[in-house]
């Protein structure tokens, strides 16, 4: 079929800055002049990794419920957090520990949530951020709704939504992008392409060459970036947020990374994933390159590393102690947050639960 004319053409640009050995493969962002920020980006990535290893270990020893590791995603997660302003609002999936840390969510909150306690969603320092979202892709319309609220009220704020590669197969993903494009909403969507949706590789998930190009159908500019490069993540997301806050509309950013862990602690990725692929991906992981980059500039050394690791381990230990010492909620708490006021018909059920709770050891 030969065309009479081409009515539209699209491109997906790619951006990267730090190569896997920490040398530059692109232009260094302007913010790289802020050495304290560079060190902080690295430090929070390490903090997420140390926490993550401990959380997996707690699950293995029966002290935490099912936990989805963030191993390998640290640059994407931390870079997005670092790009946001306090007044922006975050909509995550369930793996973005690094973003939550940057936004001021405590380790204890995350342990409580995966430890089966709703109090882990009460983020004191980011009261408008949404909690983790388990039904895949369903957080996307919430971000669009928040962005619409900012637009209606004329506020210069941005809704930032994460979605995974599997999440881009959901209708809610496309519906939210479609709205964001149509109404030019102040929203940034970061697709975390970690290669796998449990056992489904991206190549089986979609025939689309990139996930970023799904934004093109919604009339939204899109870019693919190296998601293991915290500098380019921070830079690209910050640019997109600034554009959104200024009324320039939404952006979709596909961050290329890799899920170095199992899907969750209940999963065994060796059943469906080639060990060679994981080993190759491990060589591209985000922390080593950032450390090499910092060391090459005299901004980091072994002593700083040891001190940071020690500090993170102590913070994790303190959080774990607090978590394990937190008594469970009363059975009343199942009822007390259903409505602003408990409907009278539920009082008898609350009493029942209270009575049986006292009968259990």
């Amino acid at each position: 079929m030969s065309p009479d004319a081409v009515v539209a053409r699209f491109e997906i640009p790619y951006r990267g800055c730090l190569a896997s050995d920490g040398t530059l493969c692109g232009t260094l962002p302007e913010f790289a002049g802020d050495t304290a920020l560079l060190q902080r980006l690295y430090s929070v990535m390490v903090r997420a990794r140390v926490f993550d290893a401990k959380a997996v270990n707690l699950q293995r020893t029966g002290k935490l419920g099912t936990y989805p590791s963030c191993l390998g995603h640290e640059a994407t997660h931390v870079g997005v957090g670092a790009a946001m302003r306090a007044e922006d609002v975050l909509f995550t999936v369930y793996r973005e520990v690094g973003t939550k840390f940057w936004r001021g969510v405590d380790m204890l909150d995350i342990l409580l949530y995966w430890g089966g306690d709703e109090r882990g969603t009460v983020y004191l320092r980011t009261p408008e951020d949404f909690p983790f979202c388990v039904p895949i892709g369903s957080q996307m319309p919430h971000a669009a709704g928040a962005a619409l609220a900012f637009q209606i009220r004329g506020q210069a704020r941005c809704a930032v939504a994460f979605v995974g590669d599997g999440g881009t197969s959901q209708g809610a993903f496309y519906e939210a992008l479609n709205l964001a494009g149509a109404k030019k909403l102040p929203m940034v969507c970061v697709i975390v392409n970690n290669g796998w949706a449990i056992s489904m590789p991206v190549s089986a998930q979609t025939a689309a060459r990139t996930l970023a190009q799904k934004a093109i159908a919604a009339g939204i500019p899109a870019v693919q970036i190296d998601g293991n490069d915290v500098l380019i993540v921070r830079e690209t997301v910050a640019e997109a947020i600034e554009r959104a806050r200024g009324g320039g509309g939404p952006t979709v950013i596909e961050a290329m990374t890799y899920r170095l862990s199992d899907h969750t602690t209940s999963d065994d990725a060796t059943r469906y994933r080639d060990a060679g692929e994981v080993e190759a991906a491990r060589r591209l992981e985000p922390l080593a390159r950032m450390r090499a980059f910092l060391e090459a500039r005299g901004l980091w050394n072994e002593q700083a590393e040891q001190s940071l690791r020690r500090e993170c381990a102590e913070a994790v230990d303190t959080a774990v102690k607090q978590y394990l010492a937190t008594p469970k909620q009363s059975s009343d708490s199942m009822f007390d947050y259903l409505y602003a006021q408990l409907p009278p018909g539920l009082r008898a059920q609350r009493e029942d639960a209270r009575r049986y709770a006292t009968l259990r050891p």
Partner: protein
Amino acid sequence: MAKMTMVEAINMAHAWEMAQDPSVVVLGEDVGTNGGVFRATAGLQQRFGKARVQDTPLAEGLIAGTAIGMAAQGLKPVAEIQFMGFIYPALDQIASHMARLRNRTRGRLTCPLVMRMPHGGGIHAPEHHSESLEALLCHHPGLRVVCPSSPARAYGLLLAAIRDPDPVIFLEPVRLYRFAKQDVADDGRALPIGHCFVLREGSDVTLVTWGAMTVDSLKAAQQLAAEGVSCEVIDVATLAPIDFETILDSVVKTGRLLIVHEAARTAGLGAEIAATVAEQALYDLHAPIRRVTGYDTIMPLYRLEHDYIPGVARIVDGIRATLAD
């Protein structure tokens, strides 16, 4: 005080609350320039502007999900779903997020919003436009489900729904939209959610119903009154959480219960009402509880819709059977 239809009263309630509360916003398909396919939002965009009356893309799940994001941000969205038969794509958002957000964040984030939609059949509409699916929603703790049965109750209950701090599903009986005019005062006075309305007092049998079936139930009650049968007719109005106190008080008084609803019988809301009355007032009953409901069939295309929807004759027979037991 002006005489008006239910759809006009619904429109008036929107306008009142939008004028009083700048956080109230309307969204949905064709709600803006077009004023809604039933005209429920007519004139609102002209009066309150495009920012506060937003036409959305054609995606019900998106409308529900967007309303959640807006509500968590402190707006009070009133979202229209064009027909209840199209609620299915929105159920994920309603059940997974809208009903749960307050609970899962221990009250940090909430969903003060209203999802309005036409409910039931009887207007010769196409396929998928005549469904009665309240049971799907009543099963989800965290939601309130409200169904008015007159213009005045639609006005008062919609105001209450918009002011409610939690999500309210507002079911509008489609064949009552323009069924009868009634005096409705535009005084901004809400009616209480969570309470039944006793539409007719009686002593022989209690009819428990809601939405458009209240009209047929009242007709049946009137017809039997000529034979000396005294029916109490209760409009449940808030389908979740139900005010069982009013229902139980009535059943204890009459000793007989007939539940009337348009939705299919199996696992319908009538089953829950029957079970609760059996649990709490069995020994006050003089006869088995009976139900007159839609059949356990697919809602037919419109030539047969009145074969499906329980009419006065079936309700009268139901009352007679209860009295004969």
